[in-house]
């Protein structure tokens, strides 16, 4: 047997004489003696010099394959199978397309219309969700509540959450907010509703941020930091997204330096987003990966995200949907308001599918030989569809993945270890 090509191997100072293996297909992580790995790389997988515990780890990680061909076929098989067999649902709910800020870079400009989900729509959406969970025997649901600014209009949750709970499903709830309405009463209300996690955004250090995110004539930097502390004090995990303009990463560094006063940092995950100059979905594939920002965040005590995303994106899963305030349904939150990307709509408690193209996934076979296939899968679903319709379309993020693997993956594993050992 051979080590799967979809594996990342690296050293950490904490583990002398051993190497970390990260399985890019199932996201398992293991620790193996360097000598055992050397034997594997020489093709001696049956060598008696590989100790029993290393064999056990390799087996538990499911990282050995018969040969290169089987390695590719295995990755292809599970990549195509998983979207249709998982019993984990993912819903993104937009309670409103209204906002109390006016950020110059907002990706929802043109679709923010001040509208909010009305009671009748909330009732219909709640009825559909309940029936959808039961008929598909879903066992776990991730619910992300976003907007606009969702805290302006949480009323639909009063109708929808009881319909979810009555099914008995386990549910993880997250909120993406600009944070300016997150006072203690609001945080307690979110906790009572069952939220687990909140994301807020900073647009730079105090001076830069306050030029962008102004509320009632005032800057919001300290208001948001106070909200972050309130969240973690009451048990909510927090993601802080730090935006910075293209080619101005020093602004991101200044921002992270300005977070020194935050408490409970192990509950806070920081990530960085370079603002792109072109409005293009899934720009993550085009973004420049800047490892030193993550290194700084890690050493400042914050958690950092896994660089290879999830096993499966919501838009690829047959059990993932985004629901707009008017009951229109999409696969991806990026599709809201985008021409030709509406899947259908929910009316009278039923989802009527009007665009079946949104339900299909198109694998890119030529990418199978690439080490990063299981995590990239040939680009986002919508890019894959573009390639399917126009095969000459090429867009490869190999170099970005390579940087992420070499520089950020080791930090991420260290971040996990630090959190576990704490």
């Amino acid at each position: 047997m051979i080590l799967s090509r979809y594996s990342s191997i690296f050293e950490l100072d904490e583990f002398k004489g051993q190497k970390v293996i990260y399985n890019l297909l199932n996201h398992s992580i293991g620790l193996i003696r360097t000598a055992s790995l050397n034997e594997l790389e020489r093709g001696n997988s049956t060598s008696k010099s590989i100790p029993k515990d290393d064999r056990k780890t390799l087996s538990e990680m499911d990282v050995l394959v018969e040969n290169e061909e089987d390695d590719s076929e295995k990755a292809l098989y599970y990549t195509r199978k998983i979207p249709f067999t998982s019993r984990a649902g993912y819903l993104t709910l937009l309670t409103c397309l209204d906002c109390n800020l006016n950020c110059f870079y907002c990706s929802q400009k043109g679709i923010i219309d001040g509208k909010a989900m009305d009671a009748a729509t909330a009732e219909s959406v709640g009825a559909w969700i309940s029936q959808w969970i039961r008929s598909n025997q879903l066992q776990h649901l991730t619910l992300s509540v976003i907007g606009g600014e969702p805290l302006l209009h949480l009323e639909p949750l009063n109708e929808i959450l009881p319909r979810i709970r009555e099914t008995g499903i386990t549910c993880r709830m997250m909120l993406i907010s600009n944070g300016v309405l997150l006072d203690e009463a609001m945080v307690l209300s979110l906790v009572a509703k069952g939220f687990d996690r909140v994301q807020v955004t900073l647009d730079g250090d105090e001076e830069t941020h306050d030029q962008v995110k102004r509320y009632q004539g005032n800057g919001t930097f300290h208001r948001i930091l106070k909200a972050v502390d309130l969240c973690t004090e009451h048990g909510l995990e927090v993601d802080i997204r730090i935006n910075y303009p293209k080619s101005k990463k020093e602004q991101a560094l200044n921002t992270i330096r300005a977070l020194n006063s935050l408490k409970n940092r192990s509950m806070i995950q920081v990530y960085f987003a370079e603002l792109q100059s072109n409005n293009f979905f899934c720009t993550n594939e085009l973004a420049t990966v800047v490892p030193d920002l993550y290194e700084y965040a890690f050493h400042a005590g914050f958690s950092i995200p896994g660089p290879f995303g999830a096993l499966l994106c919501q838009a690829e899963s047959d059990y993932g949907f985004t629901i707009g305030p008017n009951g229109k349904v999409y696969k991806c939150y990026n599709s809201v308001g985008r021409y030709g990307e509406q899947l259908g709509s929910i009316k009278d408690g039923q989802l009527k599918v009007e665009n079946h193209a949104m339900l299909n996934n198109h694998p890119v076979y030529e990418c199978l030989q690439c080490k990063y296939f299981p995590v990239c899968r040939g680009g986002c679903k919508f890019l894959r569809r573009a390639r399917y319709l126009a095969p000459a379309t090429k867009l490869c993020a190999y170099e970005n993945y390579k940087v992420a693997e070499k520089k950020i993956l080791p930090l991420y594993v260290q971040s996990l270890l630090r959190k576990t050992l704490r």
Partner: protein
Amino acid sequence: MLLRAGYDLKVDQPTLVGFGCCGLMGYEVQQIELVLPVNP
């Protein structure tokens, strides 16, 4: 030593999917938003 068990691809376990977003710098368990595009 196993540091983290992977998703069991052979079993339809509830934690298999539903966590996150496509591709690079997505999040493993919670993130849905990646790089925010700027309007031209």
